[in-house]
């Protein structure tokens, strides 16, 4: 409690100060309350409402001023790096519900894509929007389960330690730049982004909504026999997609595992992965199963939303898989040159056998990523 301030007034001021970013409040709340106490001592009848309005307005202006621009922000949400100028914002962001924010960002992108598609084709898109949101909700356990790892990796990516303090290069550590390439990540990312953008457009284009005698407005979701031809197409497409996804998983996930085993084993015969691959394979299985289920359901001409629900969640899921794979590969690495995706700045100890010791290079807290 601040001397000279009415406790109720102080509570209201603290509430109004919530408009300011967290880092600002941590540093300045007591000072602002002190200033208000000084002001109240110096004059009588200061306007409570006016002060609160001024604090709320200034707080949101400060948030707006320090927030990264839209494109940078979106890039960060998808796993990119922010410039040092946004470090304060980054630390605030990581101290909050980062998983919920990242999830809602991806779902928002998909909703925008769906809206754009429905606007282009001039059709109602309620099932797609609903499917997107349900798909996002279905993906939320993945985000939630990865929240600590996400925070740790984001800090490391920005060259910060667990307390958010920049890590200087350790003395005596030889850092060299090595070009690494990624095999699995581009596959996941390309599939994810393609689905994220193309799926709503493709499905809306594919469906001839006029053939559906029941509309959203009338509350009917059951599809009649009139649209059998289209539904057969959708069902087959869903099954083909599921099969392709399965093949991609077969191609990509064991390779990730193999790499981690190679890093751990280094000729020692150990085959245990260094760390769990997390929810990624599980999510892949869920995606494949749900797609297959949706395909079969559609072929049985049951419910259109089953397809929508299953497929709308795929975009965010695959983007998550891609980002997770990219990060994992950045850590574990591979020296195999690939033409399309390269990350050029991975620090490691100077060692003639990078594949065998790369993991160890990132273990010490003083190892630095640039």
């Amino acid at each position, binding site marked *: 409690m*601040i001397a*000279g301030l009415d406790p109720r007034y102080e509570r209201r001021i603290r509430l109004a100060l919530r408009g300011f970013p967290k880092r600002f409040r941590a540093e300045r709340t007591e000072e602002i309350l002190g200033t208000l106490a000084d002001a109240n001592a*110096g004059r009588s009848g200061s306007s409570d409402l006016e002060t609160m309005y*001024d604090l709320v307005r200034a707080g949101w202006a400060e948030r707006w001023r320090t927030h990264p621009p839209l494109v940078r922000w979106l890039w960060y949400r998808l796993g990119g790096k922010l410039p040092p100028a946004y470090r304060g914002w980054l630390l605030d962001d990581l101290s909050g519900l980062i998983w919920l924010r990242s999830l809602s960002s991806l779902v928002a992108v998909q909703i925008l894509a769906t809206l754009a598609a429905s606007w282009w084709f001039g059709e109602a898109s309620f099932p797609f929007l609903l499917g997107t949101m349900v798909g996002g909700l279905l993906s939320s356990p993945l985000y939630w389960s990865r929240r600590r790892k996400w925070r740790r990796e984001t800090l490391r990516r920005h060259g910060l330690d667990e307390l958010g303090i920049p890590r200087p290069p350790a003395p005596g550590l030889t850092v060299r730049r090595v070009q690494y390439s990624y095999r699995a990540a581009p596959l996941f990312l390309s599939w994810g982004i393609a689905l994220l953008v193309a799926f709503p457009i493709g499905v809306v284009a594919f469906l001839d909504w006029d053939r559906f005698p029941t509309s959203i407005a009338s509350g009917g979701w059951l599809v009649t026999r009139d649209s059998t031809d289209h539904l057969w197409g959708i069902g087959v497409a869903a099954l083909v997609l599921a099969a392709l996804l399965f093949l991609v998983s077969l191609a990509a996930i064991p390779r990730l595992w193999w790499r981690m085993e190679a890093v751990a084993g280094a000729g020692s015969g150990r085959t245990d992965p260094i760390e769990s691959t997390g929810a990624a394979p599980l999510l892949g299985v869920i995606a494949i199963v749900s797609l297959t289920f949706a395909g079969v359901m559609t072929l049985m001409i049951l419910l259109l939303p089953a397809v929508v629900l299953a497929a709308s969640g795929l975009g965010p899921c695959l983007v998550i898989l891609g980002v997770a794979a990219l990060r994992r590969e950045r850590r574990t690495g591979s020296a195999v040159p690939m033409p399309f995706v390269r990350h050029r700045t991975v620090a490691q100890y100077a060692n003639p056998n990078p594949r065998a010791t790369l993991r160890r290079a990132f273990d010490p807290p003083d190892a630095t990523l640039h």
Partner: protein
Amino acid sequence: MREASYLILTAVADGERHGYGIVREIEAISLGRVTLGTGTLYGALERLHGEGLMEATRVEVVEGRTRRYYRLTPRGRSALLAEVERLEANVSAARLRLSGSA
């Protein structure tokens, strides 16, 4: 430069001041025309600090109230001087035209 920034920089141009001291000084400088709200003041202080125009010198607690003192940095002094010169040029130009039209 915004008027609030200009007034805040001016208020600490002759020495360090804490938050409420700056508010009172601004009232005096502007002859009572401007009363800076607390939110506006601290939003501007944060921005000016981020731009390297002001710095905090010390913190003290007086009768349970936290006070942080601020002063101009060399960069802030240069920015204020540049702004004053710009304003003077504007005023001179306006006076010249007014006296010519009279």
